[in-house]
């Protein structure tokens, strides 16, 4: 019922961020300095994923990262009681919707002590990215989570390239840039 009427984009428009394409056409300076983003690059933490079939005790399905080889994985550890974790949800949803077709997979690991709290939160948010449950914190131990939330951005070869502790609204642009960078790598 809808035919898309395109609006004219006046000549002097400067396209600054086209989320539709993989590459950022105009390199936008990231807003604030990325919070405590430890750029772990190739030389950084080198967590080999060869063995990577990690089977946390209570997770509904083992976190099989090897199956995701070739895709960029945004792995986020969160809990329902943690305010910055809640703030990151809309943004993670947006990232999944935008970059899923370009190869991004968002996986979140819930670390709530009892699952009812997590379920209550998820009912309000309807996120459509994966949520693993890890009440014992097995995965959190494995990834040495030291703060909440902790997000690990893993490149197509399974190497953790960036690790972030905490989530500030101002971090969104910086994290988006890093995801796009890894998406662009083959």
């Amino acid at each position: 019922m809808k035919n898309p009427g395109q609006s004219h984009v006046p000549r002097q428009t400067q396209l600054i961020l086209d989320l539709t394409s993989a590459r950022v056409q105009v390199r936008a300076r990231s807003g604030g300095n990325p919070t405590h983003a430890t750029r772990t690059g190739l030389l950084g933490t080198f967590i080999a994923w060869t063995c990577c079939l990690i089977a946390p005790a209570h997770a509904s399905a083992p976190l099989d990262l090897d199956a995701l080889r070739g895709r960029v994985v945004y792995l986020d550890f969160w809990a329902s009681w943690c305010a910055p974790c809640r703030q990151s949800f809309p943004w993670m949803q947006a990232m999944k919707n935008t970059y899923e077709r370009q190869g991004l997979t968002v996986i979140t690991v819930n670390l709530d002590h009892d699952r009812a709290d997590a379920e209550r939160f998820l009912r309000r948010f309807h996120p459509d990215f994966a949520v693993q449950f890890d009440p014992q914190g097995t995965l959190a131990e494995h990834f040495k989570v030291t703060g909440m939330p902790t997000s690990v951005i893993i490149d197509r070869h399974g190497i953790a390239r960036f690790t972030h502790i905490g989530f500030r609204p101002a971090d969104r642009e910086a994290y988006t840039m890093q995801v796009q960078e890894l998406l662009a790598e083959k």
Partner: protein
Amino acid sequence: MQLGADTRGVRRRLVAATCALLTASATRSQATPRASIDEMLSDWRLDSALAYYHEDGRIQAIEPVVSVSRDFGDGETLDLNFTFDSLTGSSPNGALPSRKPQTFASPSGTSLMLAHHSYTTAPGELPVDPHYHDQRFALGADWTLPLTRLTRVTVGGKFSDEHDFLSVTADASIAHDFNDKNTTVSLGLFDENDSLSPIGGAPVPLSDYALFEKTGHKSKNGAGVLLSVTQVMTRTWLTEFNLSADRFTGYLNDPYKIISVIDDGGDTVGYVYENRPQSRTRRSAYLENRVGWERASAALSLRYMSDSWGVHSATAQLNLRQWNAERDKYLEPTARWYRQTAADFYTPWLLNSAGPDVTVASSDSRLGAFRALTYGLKFGMKLNDKFGRDDSELNLRVEYYQQTVESAVPGPGSLQGLDLYPSLKAVLLEIGFSY
């Protein structure tokens, strides 16, 4: 829809329906301003309370307190608070009850005859100034800035203004988290500067009350340090241990307090203004334990304090909070036990024969030895669905506070049989709202 019918009405009803939808969604987005993006971002919090304090036969006070805090999302927070006190009623002037009626001039008087107010206390009654009234207005602010993920600095200030007392306080503290934020050590300093302009002027210490020898303004200032260690013991048990010390110097007297001078027969022969040492050093240790269960929590705090005026006090407070099944209403009974010894220079009266070698003396009951018990009950109710915030709350609190004097020295002669140390009974009612 047949044409020709009142289709103009259609547009009107359509506009109305659209407005209803969008205003509903707009108000919803107002209630949680950036609804979709950071629904849970509680950037602004409001804590407010209206307290009514009433002493048995003495003063009563109304105290609204409003605190607004902003969380900038990365550990940086700003807290602004506002307090207003309005006190009225009768305040003990420090004199003893007597077999004979006693007449006093209110502080603003320059002599018994020319006093704006004078008041007479019946025999056997505790002398209290019935015209006591006071209004205080205070503003405070605290700003916490994270230096790193584990270290943060807090700077704060407080300004408090009464017609006869102005106080400005500044404080700063630095806190650092150890082993995965389980241990937090913080060190804080504060500096307070007060200026006093008592009604009718500050009396010459220990001068004869009847002479009304008054001088001008006075000031006092204080500084202190607070070392705090917070330790997470288990997933449901948190402990805080504080050590603090402070030192105040300057005019520490209460300009309106007088001491009865009695003869050996116990009869009051006159009054002198009190005098306290010019400095006071206090040290205190404080331990707070909080334990949480599924639908309950308990807090036990202990405090020990001793100061250079010879006052040693011990305090214990227990709060038990029990939520209902849906976890949206709670009851919180509280109990507090307090005990203090008297200041070295505390004396309910001065003997006429004591002569001039008395340098410091005060009959202020707050420096005497007493025990105090507080029983309280608080009822709280979450309002989360109405305001879209999961921690907005309405609560009611009532507390009953009673002081009983200890090691009371019986009065000589005619004072026998008089209740020289009437106990203080008070009730506090408070309604609170936080969003």
